[in-house]
Every structure is written in C-alpha cells, then in structure tokens.
C-alpha cells in the first residue's frame, strides 16, 4: 500500500509539468497582456518594458517558462503582477475559504443524497422514489450559478447573507448551491447501488434470520453499496472544485476559484498558472485519498495492493 502511494505521488510530477506547460503557453497565446492593462493609459513602450522586467515577464516565452519552472522547483511560485504579492502567499490565504466551501457542499450533498437514495431504493417505484429521482434530476441539470442566483433571490430577503464571508451563515447559500449538483448525482448512484445490493441473497438470508430491516440496510446493504458511491463521489470532487469557480463569483466568496478566474481575465500568467498547478495538486491528492478509502471499505482491494 505504501509503495502504491509513493508511486502515485511520483506520477504527479509529470502531470504537474504538463499542466504548467499547457497553462503557461495557452495564457501566452491569448491576446493581451497584464502589463498593458496595469500601466497608465499614456505609458511609453520603455515604461512598459520596465514593468515587464520588474514582473519577470520580459524575454522569449520559452526562456520565461523555464525560468518559471526553475523557480517552481525551488518552491517559488513567483509574484502576481495583478495582486503585487507572492502567488503562494495569496493561494494559501484563499485556500481555506475554498476548502471550507467544498467541505460544506460535500456535507450538504451527503446529508441530502445518502438518506434520499436509500429511501428511494427501499421504497422502489413508490411516490417517494419518483420524487427523489425528480429532485436528483433537477440537482444534476441545474447549473450551479443559476441555482445560486435563485437562492439569493429567495433566501436573502429572509436574512441569509447574499454573499461575502465571515460567519457560518455566509456559508449556507453557497454550500447549498454547490452541493445540490453533487447531491443529485450521489442520490442517483446511491439508489441504483442500493437496489443492486438489497436484491442479493445474503440480505434475504439476514432477514430470514430475523435481523431487523434497519440493521439489514445499515450494516449489510449500505456498506456493500458504498464502493460505487465512493467512486462517483471521488469523481464529483473535481466538479465541485470546478463549480466553486462560478459559485465563488456569484456569492463573492473569497476563494481560489474566483482568484483563478480573475487571474485568467487579467492575463496574470504567473497567478493563473500557480493556481491551476495547485488545483491539480489538490485534485490529485483528493483522488489518491479516495483510492485509499476504497481499500478501507473493500478488503479485496487492500489485498490486491498488498500483492
């Protein structure tokens, strides 16, 4: 298992180099540069060049990229021209807000989806099942930013903050908007996974032995239905981070999603590349944790790793 984890961590290195290369080059290919938007309207070419030099944006693209990569290897993610601060410092400052939002959205998604999925499966083809699936479909189909705007319109007149951060109440609406999509996907997968499991012979045996229905569902069915749920949960985490970009903008949430969007809009290559690299690290580590979680849920997988 330990070897597997090391192998996965080492695999991250080429992924990160590839990501940095693609982002850095794509940002450079896009027309416009941050210096011309930062400079006064009447700045001369010499002044623009002076500013490019100040922010390390002078010289040919390849040279700049390798200079950036070299700095990155020493842990220096560079200075953001738009924020005039070190990228690492800004990222670390903004990261907790995004993690907080992602965690809250995950909790919302799990609180909604697992009971709803189980209820839908145990009441298969009932009215409750139908309602659950309709709600799940709405959750999956509705764009997060649109739901966000609706939630602001519905709930902020009642006193819930429409944006910003600072108190737990500020988290309610963005977490609901972001968690709804994930909840929809997870409800559907919980339901289908549970439906597969509750038809198994060993559950019939458990019931015949007189085990209560609650015990059958909680101890025997749910644990075995968890593997596909975890698989889908892992893959939806990527969507969650992607969704955070839109939700953070709608709810003025000071996280890294909004930071990245601003960086791209302002053509701040250093900041955008840094943020996307860190996003990749975050996602890869999360996927690794999900993989490790499999092993704990399914002893067969753990045994496979041990070989």
């Amino acid at each position: 298992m330990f070897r597997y984890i090391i192998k996965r961590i080492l695999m991250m290195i080429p992924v990160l180099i590839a990501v940095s290369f693609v982002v850095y080059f794509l940002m450079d290919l896009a027309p416009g540069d941050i210096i011309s938007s930062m400079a006064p309207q009447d700045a001369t070419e010499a002044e623009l060049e002076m500013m490019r030099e100040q922010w390390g944006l002078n010289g040919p693209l390849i040279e700049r990229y390798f200079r950036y990569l070299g700095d990155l290897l020493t842990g220096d993610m560079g200075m953001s021209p738009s924020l005039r601060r070190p990228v690492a410092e800004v990222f670390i400052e903004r990261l907790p807000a995004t993690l907080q939002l992602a965690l809250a959205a995950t909790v919302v998604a799990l609180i909604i989806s697992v009971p709803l999925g189980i209820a839908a499966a145990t009441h298969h083809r009932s009215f409750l099942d139908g309602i659950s699936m309709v709600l799940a479909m709405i959750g999956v189909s509705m764009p997060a930013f649109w739901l966000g705007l609706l939630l602001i319109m519905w709930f902020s007149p009642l006193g819930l903050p429409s944006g910003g951060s600072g108190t737990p109440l500020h988290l309610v609406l963005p977490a609901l908007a972001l968690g709804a999509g994930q909840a929809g996907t997870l409800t559907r997968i919980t339901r289908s996974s549970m439906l597969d499991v509750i038809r198994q012979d060993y559950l019939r045996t458990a019931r015949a032995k007189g085990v209560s229905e609650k015990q059958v569902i909680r101890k025997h069915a749910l644990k075995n239905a968890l593997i596909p749920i975890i698989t889908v949960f892992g893959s939806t985490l990527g969507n969650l981070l992607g969704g955070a970009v839109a939700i953070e903008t709608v709810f003025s949430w000071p996280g890294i999603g909004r930071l990245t969007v601003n960086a791209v809009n302002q053509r701040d290559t250093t900041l955008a590349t840094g943020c996307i690299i860190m996003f990749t690290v975050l996602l890869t580590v999360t996927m690794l944790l999900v993989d490790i979680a499999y092993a704990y849920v399914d002893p067969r997988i753990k045994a496979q790793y041990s070989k």
Partner: protein
Amino acid sequence: MKSKKFVALLMAASVLATTAVGCGNGSQSSQSSPGGSGATGTQYKEEIIIAMADEFTTIDPMETTAETNQIVQDCTHDLLTDTNLTTMQNEGELLESWEMVTPDHWTFKLKENVTFHDGTILNTDDVEFTLQRAAEKPTAANYVADIKEFNKIDDLNFEIYLTKGNVDFNYTLAANSLAILSKEAFETMEESEAVKIGTGPWVFDEFVSGDHVTLTRFEEGTLYPIPNTKKLTFRMIPEASARMIALENGEVDVIMSPSATDYSRLTESDGLQLITETGRTQHFVGFNLQNEGFIGTNPEFRLAVSKAINKEEMIIAAWDGYAQVSTSMMCRDMEYYADIEGVPYDPEGAQEIFDRLGCNGMTIDLVTSDASHRVKMAENLQSQLQKYGITLNVEYMQQAALTELCTGDGTTSGVEMYILSWTPGKNADYMFRNPIHSSGGRNYSHLEDPDIDALIDAAAAEVDTEKRAEMYLELQERLTCEIIPWIPIAQNTLTIGAAEGVTGVLIHPGLVHQFKFCERLI
C-alpha cells in the same frame, strides 16, 4: 412508520433552516445600529458598506492605476491638487497655493498643520520623498519624468523646474499615483505598513483578500472635518445582480456600477436611490487608417458613416438612454471643450456618399470587446448600416485582447473598424495626445497627421488661454468633421445605487468616485 420518520427529519431540517434565517435577520438589524451623531444630534449609521465590482488589491498609490484601488486610496491619501467634484475645477488638496513663474518653473505652498495618520506633520520633505519614489515606480514614473529639479525653500514652500514647459503641470500633480506619503513612516516602518499612512479622513484598518477592505475614521485629522460615519467598508461583490439584491436587503448601503436593467428598480423603489452624473468616457466608432485595402481610409467614407449613425438610437440601445450624445471628440466637462455642431445625423447625405463610393453590398469587419454596452453598440450599428446595404461582421473579444490588437501594427492587424472608448485625464492635452497624436500609446486609428501633431504640441505649450482655446477648437472641428479617425458617439451616464439617506457620494467622471464624506442618516 419509516415514511413518518423521514417526514419528521425533513420538518426538523426546515425548522433548522428557519432558525438560521431568523439569526440572519438579527445580524442584519444590528448593521443599522446608530453610530456617530452630528452637531445637531442627528444620528448617522455607524458603518457604511460599499459594494464594489472589482477586487481591491493594493493601498500603495504608486503600484496601481485600477479605479477600485484608487477609490479606496482617495479616502486614505491626498494629492497636491485634485478635481473638486462639485465645481469640476482643479484645486489645491494639500497645496495652499501655487504659481507658474514660467511654464518650466513652478512654485508651491503647502497647507499648514496637515497631520499624517502616524501623527507627523506634512512638510516639503514628504513631497520630495513622494516624487522621488514615484520616479522609481513604473506606474507613476511618467508623471514625474519632466521634473528636472526640486528645491525646498522651507517646510511649506518648494519650487519645481521642469525639463520642458508644461502649462498644465498642476493637473499632472492631480494624478492619483502621486498621493503624498509620509517620509518618516518609510524611515520607521516596513514599506508595506508605511504606504498605508496618508493624510485622508480615513485610516486603513483591515484588508481581507477577495472579500473586503475596512477603513476607520481619522479622529486626529486636521485637513477635513471628522466624518460622522465611524467605519467605511468596501465589499467586493462581482455579480451586478448580487450587488443589487444586497442593496435591497440592506446588507450594503451603496453599490457601484448597477446594471442598466436595475435603474428603474433603483429610481422607483422606496428606500433606494440612483445617483447619476455624466461620465468623462468618450465612446466611439473608429477606423483603422493604415489598413490599405479598407475603404475607411477614404475620409469621404468616414464622413458618410458619421452622417449615417443615429446616436440617440444607439444610446437607447446601449445605455437605456442613460448617456449624452457627443458632437465633439472632446469630453464635455473638460477645459476648452467647445460645443460644436459636429456631424449631424443625415441619412440622405450618407446615402448619397455611400452610393457614390459604391458601398451597397459591401461587407466590413468590426472588432470590439464583450462588454455589454459595446455589444449593444455594435449590434445597433450593424442594423443601422444594414439600411444602407452595408453588412458589418462583428467580432467580440476581451478588452485586453482588443486593446492589443488595435494598438498593434495597423498595416498588419487586419482591423477595419472598431468600437472603443477613451477616458481622458483632467487636462485638455490628455484628450488628444494619447488617442490622436502619432506618438500616442492609444492611437487606435493609427492617425499620422503632422499638422494635427503640431497643433496638439502647440496647444499644450501655449500660455495664452485665448489662443489655446482657439487651438483646441480647431482640433475639435478638424478631427470631428474632416479627418474623423473616430466618430464620437456618447458620454455615458455614470451611476451609483444607494440606500435612502446616503449622502456625500460624489461621482468622478474618470471613475474614481469619492466616498470621503459618505454618510447615512438614520
């Protein structure tokens, strides 16, 4: 039985949600708690919250040209001279008086007993230090590039010699990047702390990246009366609809850049107000004069397009009517603006020229940015030119990309027509030098006319105001009616949304709105 439990769970969740909402209401009402009180016992709101569209990034005036930063800096720092937003005249802010001895020799006197936030008193050393620091900062260097010599006469008096004559040097000193800093603060503090020290009525208190900036009133300030508001918070809310909802809910007191679709809600709703002022941004339709294969290099064609555009119709489409028709290239509130007739709307005259030039069936490319008003301007222009048999292919791109494309090599960029805008500084020279002069950094039309260049240079150096006015009149008439590198369309109305009772918000035509004296009666 299980269904009942499920329903009970749902009910419990809704009770929890209602409780949370209730808590929200409580915190909202606490926002309205009374703060300072005026001399007559009038109660003012303790904290004014201003919702801004863009992110604040730095308090250092020499590190930025972004309006969002400058709005906050305007509350904390002062300039030697500034535009009085009520009279629109250039006046001394930290200067008591000044005199132009000759265009390249100026003398100045500072106001007495002006206190910095660190308790030190403003003197000429602070001014000298600020100008020296500006020279080292790329964003500010061009404002002080012409300073040859700075002579301290005493603590309050100094003189400046310039490398070349500049009759508008007092306007140059009004550049936001030249906000006066405390020399002593830089000697005793870290630079990141020292830049926060200004002489403004507000003291920099807290900055939470991506969320808000908080200023507290400067209790020991001597330059301004102590504000009635205790705290000024600038919150960053990028979405226009979210800003509007936050204002309606009482979460914020003022919103910047409300959406045009919300103007009626702001004017018609009880408890809300729309503050308006004509801006100093000239929106125009331009031509690339160096694109050899393009018919727009022919001045007759440009005149025809100028006659063909119904500007009022375009204003309704782009700003819902909240703009003023431009008849001159120069912006209205600027010194030496002449109310010329320009090129009036004349569809028959336009048709005649188009027919003569054989424009029917012609297709022209136009580039502009994806900003909503520009998209609407372009769509409207498309439909207006279609009436003359001219098809306009419009390409939308991001602002940075558009600027780069239009300032690039005009012979190879492929640009034919474009829609852009120009927000000049406070003096008349700024109106023409950058977007018109062949050496200008924003000469999007790539106009190269030695006569016009000479006229711009001569007007800038002219001391006699009457002669100067004549020169600027000639520039306006020739550029607007004969050469037409671009067609001035409109100066849009700048708007700010505010709650009832909010006063002291002054709209700056150059978008650096003033909140120094913002307060709200309760």
